[in-house]
């Protein structure tokens, strides 16, 4: 009996340690369910979170700094080294460019407070989302090229995958706008993040 108990606790410790801590997201969305079993790819995916008509963007860690540098050059807004570090540690964000400095100066608790982040603008007058996606794809391409040049065998040149994580109750027209923005960049294939359910519905 003691031996079984020991094995049970060993297994338990293993599973607890292999569980990854959930990163705080700037926006909690209730994604819809579908019967599709295919999983979201582990790496090389950027996620556009759509909830309450606001859009948030999450990039893979490796390209965050490079993308921010490009956006900084494009919008002519400088960032300090500290702010670059904070940005790299952020799991997803949603702020217009001109308010990004302010956001990066806050500490983690206040950054992830519900009303702090108002979303990335994506209307036709001020379409920052297009720029973020474009620069992220560019940064990803450069990063992969660097890895291939350094002889990394696992690196293959492929475009950054985009996944849309939308709230189930969101009006479809909002998501359609995001899809249109992606199509304008010739990004016609993307993923929709869903929960799993059976066919009985």
């Amino acid at each position, binding site marked *: 009996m003691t031996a079984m108990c020991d094995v049970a606790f060993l297994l338990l410790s293993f599973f607890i340690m292999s569980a990854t801590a959930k990163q705080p997201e700037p926006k909690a969305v209730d994604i819809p369910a579908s019967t599709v079993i295919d999983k979201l790819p582990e790496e090389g995916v950027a996620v556009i979170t759509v909830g309450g008509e606001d859009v948030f963007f999450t990039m893979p860690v490796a390209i965050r700094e490079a993308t921010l540098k490009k956006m900084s050059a494009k919008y002519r807004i400088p960032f300090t080294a500290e702010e670059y570090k904070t940005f790299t540690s952020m799991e997803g964000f949603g702020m217009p460019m001109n308010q990004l400095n302010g956001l990066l100066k806050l500490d983690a608790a206040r950054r992830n407070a519900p009303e702090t982040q108002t979303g990335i603008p994506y209307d036709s007058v001020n379409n920052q989302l297009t720029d973020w996606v474009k620069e992220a794809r560019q940064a990803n391409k450069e990063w992969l090229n660097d890895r291939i040049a350094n002889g990394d065998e696992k690196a293959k040149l492929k475009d950054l995958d985009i996944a849309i994580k939308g709230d189930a109750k969101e*009006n479809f*027209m909002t998501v359609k706008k995001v899809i249109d923005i992606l199509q304008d960049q010739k990004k016609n294939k993307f993923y929709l993040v869903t929960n799993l359910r059976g066919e009985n519905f």
Partner: protein
Amino acid sequence: MAELNTGGGDGGGKKVRSKKSNPGVDLTAMVDLAFLLITFFMLTTSLAKKQAMELAMPDKTPNIDKSKTTPIPQERMMTVLIGANNKILWYMGKFETPTIPPTEAGFGKGGIRKDLLKNVEVAKAYAKKERTYKEGDGLVVNIKASDAASYKNVVDILDEMAITHPQLYAIGDITLGEIDLLTKSGLYTAPAK
């Protein structure tokens, strides 16, 4: 634990053997809890990866070479209109001259899925009789969401596509005529801006 030895001094001659039963601690409950926790963590770490449904949209380039595309006969074209309050209206064929007139349907197994499965069979049978029949030809679905449709509605329809396997499906823009049709059938109310 400390024992109270009150009767120890009396009756010195008598041999008193107190029955000390070793109180064993029953560990079954702890082991049960451990197994429950293991099962919980086993299941949650595998569910941590979210499922993703792939969606491919047609290219938005305005120049479609008409000579290269073979027109789809309207007898195998189905249009699904999504109105307000989880209501669906579908028809086969062209909007002006439908081969099956607009029919209301609900979401799910007993609703739109039944209609989809039936139309998939009808379209497959029709396609076999065509001169240009290729393996896999069948129903073509055009999904048009009104501005009163939720994201969940569209994902549900895309899920139905994954379940019923038509030849092709696409997300299209709803026309004013179709919005009129939805309004007249009581399945659409313009959302408050």
